[in-house]
């Protein structure tokens, strides 16, 4: 009897770390692979024709038109402003607009990055729908 008890006390004193480390390493590798993909999101844009038709119904004062002329210059409702002050100008315009529709035109030479930054600013200022003319 005593011998059995002694043997029982000689059980596992340290937890086996190997399976834990195995699983943790696999998780780390998977996270490293999946992280760049998980950070992708997108901005929805409307079809030009459909959006233009809808936008035409909205009164001129309610519709906000942005034309990207170059990397530094944009036109907002035909008023030329520097790109840096777009967000400040757009916010009150969008707040006053009940439809919150923004129509974006873009010159061909402008980079995609600049175009998306304008869309992003419009979204951040509260635009509910973004229509891209010609797209």
């Amino acid at each position, binding site marked *: 009897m005593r011998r059995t008890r002694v043997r029982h006390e000689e059980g596992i004193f340290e937890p086996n770390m190997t399976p834990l480390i195995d699983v943790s390493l696999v998780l780390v590798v998977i996270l490293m692979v999946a992280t760049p993909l998980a950070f992708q999101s997108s901005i929805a844009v409307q079809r030009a024709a459909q959006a233009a038709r809808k936008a035409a119904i909205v009164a001129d004062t309610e519709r906000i038109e942005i034309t990207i002329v170059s990397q530094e210059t944009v036109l907002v409702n035909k008023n030329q402003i520097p790109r840096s002050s777009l967000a400040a100008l757009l916010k009150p315009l969008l707040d006053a607009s009940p439809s919150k529709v923004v129509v974006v035109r873009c010159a061909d030479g402008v980079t995609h990055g600049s*175009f998306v930054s304008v869309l992003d600013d419009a979204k951040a200022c509260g635009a509910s729908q973004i229509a891209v003319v010609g797209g």
Partner: protein
Amino acid sequence: MITKINVTPIIDVALVLVIILLVTAPLLSVADLPVDLPQARSREAEDERNVSITLSTAGAIAIDEDIVSADELGPALQARLAKSGNEGVLVVVRADAGAPYSAVHHLLEVARAAGATRLAIATRQRTEAKP
């Protein structure tokens, strides 16, 4: 003496791998082309099954994971959208931040002509630490 191989860690790892593959499989359905997506703060239209059109840094075009030529893009996209279950699917344009807008515009037009009803432009989530 150990007379049997301990299969528990093997099963552990295998199950974790299976789960991870199941989770990441939809995410990995994009072509292996280098694309520097433009950064943006706004987030929408995510975690949704979509058909992606990739325009890489070098100008190569791909639909999901298949690389296509500029001429094949329209018919290939039309065929992809005509597949059952793809009615009204979101078409995401993944274009490089340095690409000219005319190229992106062309992709949007082709997508529209191929029957895409919902379009989105892919961005990379901007973190507050890196403005």
